């Protein structure tokens, strides 16, 4: 892709001075792009300002937070972080982060594996009942979450899984997220089958074809799936709220709420500080994945 700097900003120098018309046109281009960029920057700042404020405020004292809408702290301090990390419970925030990871990691891995398998099956094989099964899969996409909350709760209670992380990640191991399955199927549909056929001619069986050919080609799609699943699970509040009752097992999302409930006078700066920390994993993962994410999208196509 050509960046703006690839194009000459001004015509190559000539002996005679540029005409009035040329000058006018050039000025007009410069003015219009100035306006455009200013507008974009302003809108962008407005969008991101709450986040900037959040980060700034986490370094403010509790009293300063409500006295000024400006994000920059007058006397920056780490007090919010220190206090927040300790929490009002016997555990530090580290426990809650570890708890979150105990849900997120199995869930992301399970999602990646099961959704790829199911999508591969639907996209590439003919089997009896395929149409019906696919319709059911898509139907669950349209089903509101709340509808299944109670039956699911009863099911997991019967299994004796309450107050464990199993109800939170076990469904993901069974391709419970129809949206991700659908996403990978759509991606697979755009990939010509010849590469898989070539692999079969080369002697690969179905599993080897999947592992050595399909998965690498699907990499960008699988990374996006992992990324979304990671962020959604980190932010999931309702799931843990329903199934986790012991404070020791709380993930970050619940722990944040905990610090609001537990004290009469909220320590807003420590809440904000922990919120910032809670955001960090998602951001870090996103920026780490971004490269292969974009790379994958731009190189996914195969030359004909």
């Amino acid at each position, binding site marked *: 892709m050509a960046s703006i700097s690839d194009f000459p900003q001004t015509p190559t120098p000539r002996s005679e001075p540029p005409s009035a018309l040329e000058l006018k046109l050039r000025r007009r281009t410069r003015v219009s792009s100035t306006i455009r960029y200013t507008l974009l920057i302003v809108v962008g700042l407005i969008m991101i300002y709450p986040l900037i404020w959040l980060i700034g405020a986490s370094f403010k004292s509790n009293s300063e937070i409500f006295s000024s809408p400006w994000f920059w702290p007058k006397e920056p301090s780490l007090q919010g972080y220190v206090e927040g990390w300790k929490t009002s419970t016997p555990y530090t925030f580290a426990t809650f982060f570890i708890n979150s990871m105990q849900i997120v990691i199995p869930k992301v891995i399970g999602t990646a594996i099961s959704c790829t398998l199911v999508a591969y099956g639907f996209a590439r094989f003919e089997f009896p009942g395929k149409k019906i099964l696919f319709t059911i899969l898509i139907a669950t996409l349209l089903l509101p979450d709340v509808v299944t909350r109670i039956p699911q709760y009863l099911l997991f209670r019967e299994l004796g899984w309450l107050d464990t992380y199993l109800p939170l990640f076990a469904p993901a191991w069974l391709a419970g997220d129809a949206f991700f399955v659908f996403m990978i199927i759509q991606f697979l549909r755009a990939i010509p089958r010849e590469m898989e*056929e*070539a692999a079969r*001619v*080369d002697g690969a*069986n179905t599993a080897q074809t999947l592992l050595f050919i399909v998965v690498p080609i699907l990499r960008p799609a699988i990374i996006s799936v992992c990324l979304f699943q990671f962020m959604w699970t980190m932010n999931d509040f309702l799931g843990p709220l329903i199934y986790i009752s012991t404070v020791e097992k709380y993930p970050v999302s619940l722990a944040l709420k905990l610090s609001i409930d537990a004290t009469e006078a909220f320590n807003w700066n420590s809440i904000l500080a922990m919120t910032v920390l809670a955001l960090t994993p998602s951001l870090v993962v996103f920026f780490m994945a971004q490269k292969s994410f974009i790379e994958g999208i731009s*190189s996914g196509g*195969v*030359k004909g």
Partner: protein
Amino acid sequence: MAELKLNAVEKTYGNGFKAVHGIDLHVAEGEFMVLVGPSGCAKSTTLRMIAGLETITGGEVRIGDQVVNDLVPGKRGIAMVFQNYALYPHMKVRQNLSFGLRLKRKPKEQIERSTAEVSGVLEIEELLDRLPKQLSGGQAQRVAVGRALIKQPEVFLFDEPLSNLDAKLRASMRVRITDLHKRLRNEGRPATVVYVTHDQVEAMTMGDRICVMKDGHIMQVADPTTLYDRPANAFVAGFIGMPEMNLVPAVLSGEYGAQTLTLDGQTLTVGPGLAPRLSHGPGPVTLGVRPQHLDLVVADSPDALTGTITNLEFMGHEVNLHAKVGDAVFVCVVPSDQFDRNLQRGDRVGLKPRVEKLHVFDAETGENFSLA
């Protein structure tokens, strides 16, 4: 290397469409067989059944002395080159070539030796560490051929491997592939090849024998010369040859020895060049005459058809003259140096067929009955 046999092979697709209607084909060991026919005639389907990528719904496919109907592609001893190359996009050329060998867990030094040998033959040594997206069409095509070659298969299958290349590259790849085939033959390890194309030039120049297909049926299997000189039916006659053979309705009448062909009220005497070849009696026929076998003569000459010029195409070394005789349009190829430059559209000319080269087809079945 082994021979390949198709016995009454049929294909009915899942939607009930019958694409292949029981074909028999025998490809000898080391033979270069070309499957040719218009788009949609089930060339790919046939090839993919040989490869094992489509199920065979009737008949049997034999490679060597083994029936391979129920074998997976990897166990059939075949290698295939696809139209869009189908290189693995995430692997370097080197890994693309050796993928099959690595799956079979061949020793490392053998893999390296084979890779070096094959890349030498195809002149792709400098490309070994590139990704497929860094290759040009012709280079990718060579890698795809290399990936087939490295496996030393019993049978090579090609599905329109050159149709994504530009004309010039196509011509050079054509030569490269036939050279490779000859080379393997001379080295004492002849390669059995089934090569699918819709391009008759590829078919005529590459094939030891050619199998012409139409709508899931085999029309004729023969070497290029036979196909050109003795087409089994009107379809083959029209498909092979440039420009196309002129095929026009006519009526055959008269007793043996005094037969005539009539079209548009004009009569051609069936002389000794044609009469002994005819195996049918009088009736409506389709007359076939190649544009190269029509001589330009003065209008109203005996044993010539008189028509009006509708178009003249100057090709440089020759001229394609289109002339309307009745409702039919004949194309006639005249070498440039014998062409009368004064001729123009609308002029009347005579077209005299070389009777010994005439073909007569059954008007209904299209069968050539001037072969005897």
